[in-house]
């Protein structure tokens, strides 16, 4: 099994399409999204009136992971409710992801 990085981004739902395009441009071969609710610095986000969050997960190489995080930090971290983190994962077929 090959070690890779799982990058998880939790962001406002309005950013879903933009983020999907951007991580693809940075080298992600795919991603998985689910609508979630949550609370953080910006308070509760749990319904359509007030906005919801999405959790975007993408399995990428170490290098792409760093690129994505740098991009998020530069473009979003100041202004938007957003959280991102990286986990080590193992996959069977590497060619699917890199």
């Amino acid at each position, binding site marked *: 099994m090959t070690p890779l990085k799982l990058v998880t981004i939790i962001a*406002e739902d*309005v*950013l879903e399409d933009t983020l999907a395009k951007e991580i693809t441009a940075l080298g992600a071969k795919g991603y998985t999204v689910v609508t979630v609710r949550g609370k953080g610095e910006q*308070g509760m986000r749990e*319904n*359509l*009136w*007030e*906005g*919801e969050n999405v959790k975007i997960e993408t399995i990428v190489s170490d290098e792409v992971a760093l690129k994505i995080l740098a991009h998020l930090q530069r*473009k979003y971290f100041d*202004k*938007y409710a957003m959280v991102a983190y990286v986990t080590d994962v193992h996959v069977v077929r590497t060619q699917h992801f890199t």
Partner: protein
Amino acid sequence: MFASLLTPMVLAFLLGIMAARLKSDLKFPESLYTSLTIYLMVAIGMKGGYKLSLAHFDEVIWPALAALALCIAIPLWTYLIMRKLGRFDVPNAAALAAHYGSVSAVTFSAAVVFHDTLNIPVEGFMPSMLALMEVPAILVGISLARINARFPAHEGASLKEIARELLAGKSSILLFGFLIIGFACGASGWELVSPLFDAPFKGVLTLFLLEAGLVAGRRLGELKRGGAFLIAFGIVMPVVHAVLGIYLGYWAGLSEGGATVLGVLASSASYIAAPAACRVALPEASPSYYLTGALAITFPFNIMAGIPLYHYLADLIYHVPV
């Protein structure tokens, strides 16, 4: 006038507020909320289009111009008041301008039902005004932010792009789309779908207002954060805007009922299209301000006191004309 508040709609709204204050676990599934929104837009648009097909062009054109004037002017002074008197920063002032300039389809429907209940006629084409007034104010609000604060344009989102997105946005597409469909199909089309879009409308509005009450009730806890200024603004300005709307409606040749509804449109604040647009285009603006203003102050005020008040004011204006 008090009796007119004893409708299932207003009481369901109150029940929702109460349930939220009691921390009830009553909650609408999001897809029910979205489905009700879609239903309301389609039903308003379809019926409005059908009624528009019965109207004459020159009945409609002056009210339309009045509507446009209102929704372009309101955000301008809202912005100024928020900046100068309210001491809000640029993005928040601009977001509030966008919200108060734009309109609320549910407040509109409540006003139409209010007139229905009192058997006061309202021009059937008023949904066209609702559709017209939604987007421009949001664009004005966002432009104000861009102009006034050398606000760095959101990467890749020019004002033109935002305009395009707003016009292709859910509520525009549904309102304009079904206005045109209703217009094109006329009476025969309306007959086919009215058992779904007409008869149960007030019932659906009752359910929607229950949910709106739940959300407004939860927001009430944040009233303090908005501050006394926002509360005062959210009650006083809607009345000013309503009076303005009624006068313009009067001059544009609307009936008393129609003018009152135009006043209600002017006074209402958007909480569907505007928040979504501001979240994307003005991320620095805090939802605490604009949602509290639109949803926890102005919306309940209009539903529970504003509409009958504007009706009363319209009565004065129409019987002691300037």
